[in-house]
């Protein structure tokens, strides 16, 4: 690492962001109405590709690859690359696209803005993606609690059907594709890609083991690609303005416009569209600064599962995958939560642990039982009944959960706890009783270690 220059320069990688013009959520009144959308160039990209042959399917995939677009659903995987994993078309096998609108990660509320203000951009993106992968059906899976958006989006889809942008013979060509709006089953886990597919199939939303990957066997065992709402909404922009334009926004390895969902102790929480690579400090400024003039102590940069950063760590960091990795967290869904100096990090961590405990699907042993154990320990500490040695146990439990389960929820549950304790240990210790066990009085700090619980034994065989 010594010879790689640090990305934590404290300088923005978003270029001239102060003059940035919004493209995903442009300031246009009634843009959700198809006529308004059309008046502003809506469905031009679709026409150019499907009708005028601007790209063939492979060409479109390559264009998306060249744009550097990375998934906005959390994992940040290259979208063009993902599309290219789809096997060659087999006329015997239907293929599916899933548009993931389950949006349930705490601190993440950006897809709903697209549903509400610019649904046609997403619809156009969906049809383009279907074209790129020769897919005839897209399931648009919308979070169960977003009841109003389900209706709102359905209306937009109906309009697009009526105008011939979706359905049989899109724009009079022989390309046809359908969009089915699916009302989600109301659980966080339904957003995990394979779980979403089970849910769609009417099964219990248990994530599936991989391999096989969705491109090999997804919905109903057929080749499937799944993308986040925002990811697909970026596609018409890439077609209209070109991969080069998209790639020129933000840092080289993580490009394009992003919807930052800003929450926490700021004056103007909300969704803000800016390039990738924004300084966290600039985003704080955009959100109106800390509430009540307080000092910000911590930032969770990408949704509740991403490791919290202390303010010192966050200050030089920008919002792109590479820089955040170096800073010690990750981009996730770009949902930032700012926490001010009055925040009790123990309570905060406990609340997050509660969420993952509540949302674990319960399939895997380490996640099912580990999430509950984490919450119980954190609750005890938060209520002043915990012991210093509980912190060591918490860290060990994180080790026992991470990387050992079917899906990433267990990791998502462990990270905030692990990094919360590592980075805010003083606060945790301050809430703990110093004794290793109730009633045990220890003279000095070193004796704390002696009160260990039974260690996990190794088998005698």
């Amino acid at each position: 690492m010594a010879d790689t220059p640090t990305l934590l320069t404290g300088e923005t990688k978003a270029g001239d962001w102060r003059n940035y013009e919004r493209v995903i959520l442009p300031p246009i009144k009634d843009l959700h109405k198809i006529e308004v959308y059309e008046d502003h160039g809506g469905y031009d990209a679709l026409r150019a590709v499907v009708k005028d042959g601007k790209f063939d399917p492979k060409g479109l995939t390559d264009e998306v690859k060249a744009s550097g677009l990375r998934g906005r659903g959390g994992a940040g995987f290259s979208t063009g690359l993902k599309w290219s994993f789809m096997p060659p078309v087999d006329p015997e096998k239907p293929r599916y696209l899933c548009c993931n609108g389950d949006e349930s990660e705490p601190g993440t509320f950006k897809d709903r803005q697209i549903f509400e203000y610019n649904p046609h951009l997403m619809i156009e993106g969906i049809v383009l993606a279907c074209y790129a992968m020769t897919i005839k059906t897209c399931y648009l899976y919308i979070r169960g609690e977003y009841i109003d958006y389900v209706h709102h989006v359905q209306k937009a889809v109906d309009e697009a059907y009526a105008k011939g942008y979706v359905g049989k013979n899109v724009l009079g060509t022989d390309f046809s594709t359908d969009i089915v709006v699916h009302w989600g089953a109301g659980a966080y886990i339904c957003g995990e890609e394979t779980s979403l597919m089970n849910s769609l199939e009417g099964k219990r939303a248990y994530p599936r083991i991989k391999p096989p990957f969705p491109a090999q066997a997804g919905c109903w065992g057929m080749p499937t690609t799944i993308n986040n709402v925002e990811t697909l909404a970026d596609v018409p922009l890439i077609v209209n303005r070109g991969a080069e334009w998209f790639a020129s926004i933000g840092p080289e390895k993580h490009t394009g416009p992003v919807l930052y969902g800003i929450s926490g102790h700021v004056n103007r929480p909300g969704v803000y569209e800016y390039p990738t690579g924004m300084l966290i400090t600039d985003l704080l400024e955009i959100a109106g600064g800390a509430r009540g003039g307080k000092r910000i102590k911590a930032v969770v940069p990408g949704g509740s599962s991403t490791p919290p950063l202390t303010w010192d760590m966050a200050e030089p960091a920008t919002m792109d995958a590479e820089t955040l990795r170096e800073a010690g967290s990750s981009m996730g869904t770009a949902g930032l939560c700012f926490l001010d100096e009055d925040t009790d990090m123990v309570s905060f961590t406990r609340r997050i642990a509660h969420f993952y405990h509540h949302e674990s699907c319960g399939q895997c042993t380490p996640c099912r039982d580990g999430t509950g154990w984490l919450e119980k320990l954190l609750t005890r500490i938060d209520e002043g009944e915990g012991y210093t040695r509980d912190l060591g146990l918490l860290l060990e439990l994180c080790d026992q959960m991470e990387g050992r389960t079917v899906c990433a929820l267990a990791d998502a549950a462990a990270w905030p706890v692990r990094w919360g304790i590592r980075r805010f240990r003083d606060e945790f210790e301050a809430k703990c009783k110093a004794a290793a066990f109730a009633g045990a009085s220890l003279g000095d700090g070193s004796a704390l270690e002696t009160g260990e619980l039974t260690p996990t034994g190794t088998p005698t065989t």
Partner: protein
Amino acid sequence: MPQVFIDGQPYEFEEGGKLLQFCLDQGIEIPHFCYHPALSVPANCRQCQVKAGLPARDRATGELVTDENGLPVINYFPKPQTSCSLDLVDGMVVHTQYDSEEVAAIQADNLEMMLINHPLDCPICDQAGQCPLQNQAYKYGPEGSRFEFEKVHKPKRVQLGPNVVLDAERCINCTRCTRFTAEVTESHQLSIVNRGDKNYPMTAPGQILDDPYSMNVCDLCPVGALTEDYFRFKARVWEMSKTPSVSDFGAKGINVDYWVRDNQILRITPRANLDVNEYWMPDAARLVYERYNENRLQGARVNGAAVAWETAYDEAARVLKDADGSVLFLGSAWATVEDNYLLTKLADTVGGEVLGYIPYHEEGRGDGWLISDDRAPNAQGCERLGIRALDASLLQSKLAGASVLYVLDDDPVAAGVLSGADLEGVTVILHASHATNETLPHAAVAFPAAMCVETIGTYVNEAGRAQRLRPAKMIRSMNRSLMMAMGTGQSRIDRGGTPFDRWHDVTNKVDCLPGWTVIPELADRLGRPMHYKGPERVMDELAETNPAFTGATYPAMDLLGVALEDIGEPA
């Protein structure tokens, strides 16, 4: 052949398998819960994790990359892998808990998690003693628990249906039960409800688990969460012996284990035989267990009066010798091949005729799977001996000129082929297992018959598979053959009994005998002794002399049976 290296040992494998099953086949135990060979692989218990890697290959040339010692460089998967779902790949290197402390620790960690919300009520749990969780926790688990909180509470004593009771707190959520109803019976009656550590299997609201195969979920359940209603709290598993044998419930020849304490059958569970019943059996075939314990006919009788067995033999021999009309014999689809065969020999001795066996075939009774149209277990065995399904009108017409009717293990009156009045003119010699036998009041001589759980013998199922019966419980007068066969194939602790076994408790030993003991006694008295050292020799002779039984020796049949030559439709 491709090779995989497990704990440093090379093993050759056939393409297409998964690591866990391969290890189990090689005798390498890896702890596991959710995996079952007949069900899909969800890899959800996470218990079977191992460390695995593949040999590195040069991207350009595809050649194996070697280190300075010329050994292949292994790229290990960054995360531990669940062996149940891991495809075997040529050159794969695997480290199990036996040679990797890291893997052992991962498995122990997993068990620690599994146990934090498990009630650990083994002392009152029916599964204790045969519990994969208990066994594997002792072998691979941590030495203690660091969990200091109240465990999650869930419903207990839930009657899921007529035959299955759920204790949701014990459930480790392996989903074997729900996969069984989804994938095997497709009744979809069970599903996991709730999320996270609150989840457990349940029926849909207003529905019950009345799948005719429901109790298989109790066998599948790796803990005591699902138990058979009829067996709950009846006996600890270590107090019972478990004998591998065959069910007499219908002609499928379902392979079973009979669980016995104090010479009573307390429980019947399926025994895996992929050629017959796979891992399953219908509930109805288990619920017959009381038949073997209750209402049994005890002690030989002459004209309804209890007599010594010797007296009954003498009387039966006298009747047969003195017969002044024809002597008719009925074989039995409930009796073994051996007994039916000896019956044909006895008939030859006295110049009598074996008219057939009473058929119990009812069109449409079966379910096309493990419940057969044929209620009796051995019609096919009779057919192969040349004994045909009885024509009731033929029997009635022949009865007019007959003086003796000899019936092996059956009840013609209850079966409706004869009435009491039909039997008025003939002397009846009857082998009967139950005191409730409706032909019994008409019998001059009655021999209490050992049932399939007490005898040694062979049934041939409707598909032509010859399978062995082993004695699971003792009868009053054990002979040398039964003593020798008792306990063969039984679970280790039961060999020779345990201090808890009241094998010698005389109250539950039925005073009955197998046909292969009684018939030779009569043959002796009729001057044509049968020189068999037990039923095994009878079968040896049949396997040798009758092409319909070629290959069906006891050692060949062993635990899984022998598929016999197709003999075509009976003439």
